[in-house]
């Protein structure tokens, strides 16, 4: 049954063919069997999951069940969950049990979902390979020598391996789309402000956004229906009606205008990846879409701008982890400064410390205008690039990542790791939505096609992705790992 998509499982639950308890037990067993190999979970909440499953089955018997009632899900360990460890992949929060649920968690609970556990991730969501986790790297189920991508690598690997029908991730510079691409699943980063950030441990507040990661666009549509909406506790969430994202999945694509940003097909792009992406684009042409080249002229400034803005915000967001009220505290501090220094030095890993240092530096007196102010100007230009492009085309398409999943340990130099996000990062700076869908393989490692739309165009992205998945079956392919461990 782990071969089914979330939509198929929902139908099986609805018809009574499956109970939530059977389903939950099945996934818990799969997590237990393969957990040690993939390392995709930090916490497994079996007892709570079974309770939730029983409650869901009762609700269904009473006739009060919704589409997601009883649906097992995994949450990236960045979402605060009441009474359950929320580590954010860090030693700093290894001892932290949140006293409250994130808004998204609350909404999904209300919808009746079952939480299987919390998935592994790059520490504080800083990374593109899931190698910066305090809990060790996650392995890619398609090839255990490859990374699953990051930072939502645990969620992506768990979905790909059939350990959960779907999972939640967060995306600050590509952290949903890139691991979705590397693991051959579908992952949507919504428009900034579409999903509440309340209860999601902040990395870079102006860029962070939560989204669904699942087998298909249709699965993502069902999840987004439950996740999206204004939240009075998040001032940056947008008060704008939420459509039923499943309603327009089957709209025809004839007349759809697709733009291919030439900057996304330039130097550094693996030719095999390019080939897969161009083939995917031609599928859309066969569905009646037209394709043209467009330009996003400020693309090459996106990574530098991101690595000013995100670390600046992070350096401030992570100041609360000071060893005083929660999280890691060093033993026997000699005084206050010693308490701060050692608690933070011991609690944070290298990449987190590196970004705190970068951010602290760029915000310093004398450097602020040269870095932060300038980066904000670049950010506006990048946003304008997209808005200009969307004057001419409906969606943009390109690769989600310049290469397929790379080998574990392959990227030792931080900058080469940062360059991984070249096609995803500008999207966060502009605040627009993007989705990655499976579009082929290079040496048995998946390739992701990224589709971008203008602000609040999630319904359109899901429609476009769904139509592609009605025509292709890349998204239905499973790694051997998922079959073997079945």
């Amino acid at each position, binding site marked *: 049954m782990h071969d089914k998509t979330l939509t198929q499982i929902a139908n099986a639950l609805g018809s009574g063919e499956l109970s939530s308890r059977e389903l939950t037990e099945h996934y818990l067993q799969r997590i237990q069997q393969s957990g040690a190999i993939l390392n995709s979970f930090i916490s497994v909440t079996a007892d709570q999951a079974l309770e939730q499953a029983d409650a869901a089955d009762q609700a269904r018997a009473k006739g009060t069940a919704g589409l997601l009632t009883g649906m097992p899900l995994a949450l990236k360990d960045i979402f*605060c969950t009441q009474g359950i460890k929320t580590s954010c992949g860090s030693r700093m929060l290894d001892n932290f049990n*949140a006293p409250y649920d994130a808004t998204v968690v609350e909404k999904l609970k209300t919808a009746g979902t079952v939480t299987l556990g919390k998935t592994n991730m790059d520490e504080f969501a800083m990374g593109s390979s899931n190698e910066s986790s305090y809990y060790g790297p996650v392995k890619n189920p398609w090839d255990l020598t490859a990374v699953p991508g990051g930072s939502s690598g645990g969620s992506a690997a768990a979905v790909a391996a059939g350990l959960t029908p779907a999972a939640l991730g967060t995306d600050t510079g590509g952290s949903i789309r890139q691991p979705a691409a590397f693991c051959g699943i579908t992952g949507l980063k919504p428009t900034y402000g579409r999903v509440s950030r*309340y209860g999601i441990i902040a990395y870079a507040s102006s860029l962070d956004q939560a989204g669904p990661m699942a087998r298909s666009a249709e699965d993502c549509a069902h999840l987004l229906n439950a996740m999206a909406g204004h939240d009075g506790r998040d*001032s*940056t969430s947008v008060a704008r009606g939420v459509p039923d994202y499943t309603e327009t999945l089957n709209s025809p694509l004839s007349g759809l205008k697709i733009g291919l940003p030439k900057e996304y097909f330039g130097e550094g792009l693996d030719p095999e990846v390019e080939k897969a992406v161009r083939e995917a684009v031609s599928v859309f042409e066969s569905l009646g879409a037209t394709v043209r080249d467009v330009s996003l002229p400020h693309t090459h400034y996106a990574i530098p701008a991101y690595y000013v803005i995100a670390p600046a915000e992070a350096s401030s967001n992570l*100041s609360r982890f000071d060893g005083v009220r929660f999280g890691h505290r060093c033993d026997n501090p000699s005084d206050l400064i010693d308490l701060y220094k050692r608690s933070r030095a011991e609690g944070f890993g290298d990449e987190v410390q590196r970004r705190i240092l970068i951010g602290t530096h760029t915000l310093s007196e004398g450097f602020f205008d040269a870095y932060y102010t300038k980066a904000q100007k670049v950010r506006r230009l990048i946003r304008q690039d997209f808005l200009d492009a969307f004057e001419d085309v409906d969606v943009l398409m390109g690769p989600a990542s310049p290469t397929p999943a790379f080998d574990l340990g392959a990227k030792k130099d931080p900058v080469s790791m940062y360059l991984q996000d070249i096609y995803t990062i500008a999207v966060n700076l502009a605040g627009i939505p993007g989705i990655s869908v499976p579009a082929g393989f290079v040496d048995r490692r998946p390739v992701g096609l990224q589709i971008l739309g203008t602000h609040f165009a999630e319904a359109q992205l899901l429609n476009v992705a769904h139509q592609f998945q009605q025509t292709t079956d890349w998204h239905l392919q499973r790694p051997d790992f998922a079959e073997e461990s079945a």
Partner: protein
Amino acid sequence: MQWETVIGLEVHVQLATHSKIFSGASTAFGAEPNSQACAVDLGLPGVLPVLNEQAVAMAVQFGLAVHADIAEVSVFDRKNYFYPDLPKGYQTSQMYHPIVGPGEVEITLDDDTTHRIRIHHAHLEEDAGKSLHEDFHGMTGIDLNRAGTPLLEIVSEPDMRSAKEAAAYLKAIHSIVTYLGISDGNMAEGSMRCDVNVSVRPKGQEAFGTRAEIKNVNSFRFVERAIAFEVERQIELIEDGGKVVQETRLFDPERDETRSMRTKEEANDYRYFPCPDLLPVVLDQAYLDHLRSQLPELPAEKRERFQQALGLSAYDASVLSASRDMAEYFEEVHRVCGDAKQAANWVQGELSGALNRENLSIANSPVTAGQLGELVQRVLDDTINGKAAKEVFQGLWHGEGTSADAIIEAKGLKQVTDTGAIEAMIDQVIADSPAQVAQYCDAEPEKRGKMIGYFVGQVMKASRGTANPQQVNGLLKEKLDALL
């Protein structure tokens, strides 16, 4: 050399909102430590701030009251530094785009001169918690009840030239915020505190001297004393060939001195940047107009009206308009008795004296404005004389009756104006005091005026204070002079 003092003030006013500036937790003073700090105030991972609209409205009201420009768009920034009672590791404040722009306040000194003090800007920010160093056996306790309490920081231009002006400015700010009802102004509880920037320069020199900032001065008196000490210190330092260094100093009221806390070199780099969790605050004209229409009559306007319409002196008008409670009390006394001058005298004299003796604020006066107004009315209509009025006041103060009339009635203090009755009492006193009468008759005519006092006293005593003193005086003089 002649020196000139230059002073600028940063006044922190705690706004009287029900809940905190970015969370729903209560702001009430004096609760059990950490009982009024929610997840947002604790800075738990994942929490987000939501701006309290009431705090914005209060800041705007202040801005309107000091004729300031109100920013159409204002932005919250993060001020980053580590301190155990600062839960997030940053204070949310407004550095670059404050909500209230330039304005001005008029102050009146004891010598009736008025000065305009310019306000540079005022911005909204959150307060930090409190570190408690006692009772924790070498450790420090943290109380986060105050964390997130809304503050309005009002920054003046360096327009004050004496400690008196600084104190008057602080009083003016106090009076404006309490009139507006946007703060309880309670300095003892920390609802209002200020940082004082002080420098000196040779008289006539245009350039400012190097300033020292005295932190956290929390009373009108301390402001004057801290400035007096600091000015003297700086002048002495310079005259001895030294240089003032830019630094932060602390005022110690016990020793009446300021001490260095940290110099400019040790100052923090706060790494201000716009808070990405909060949207810019955008205010439209309709909102400002609405708040403007809600403004009460402010101290300056009241002072003006008390002088122009009620004929009070500048001094009386200034004292009576200094606080909203005082002004409202006075206006009620005036409404009831109909005589502004008398109402002013009673409020500033008998009432203020009694309040000061018992350390009560006018809001807690045992004598209501209505009661006092009626009492004054009884003096004005000659029902009682001045002496009896004081007794009636004491009666009201001690709750011996619910109204002036009731006490006058119960104590029989109604003034005797019946000439026959007064004459009878005078005749009796003259008959009982042959020695004094003889002295009177023997005295030089110019000394008799003074000697008559004895007889007046005896008659008043005989009437138990109820005789009309003017009548007694006139009749006594007639009768005694008839004996010559």
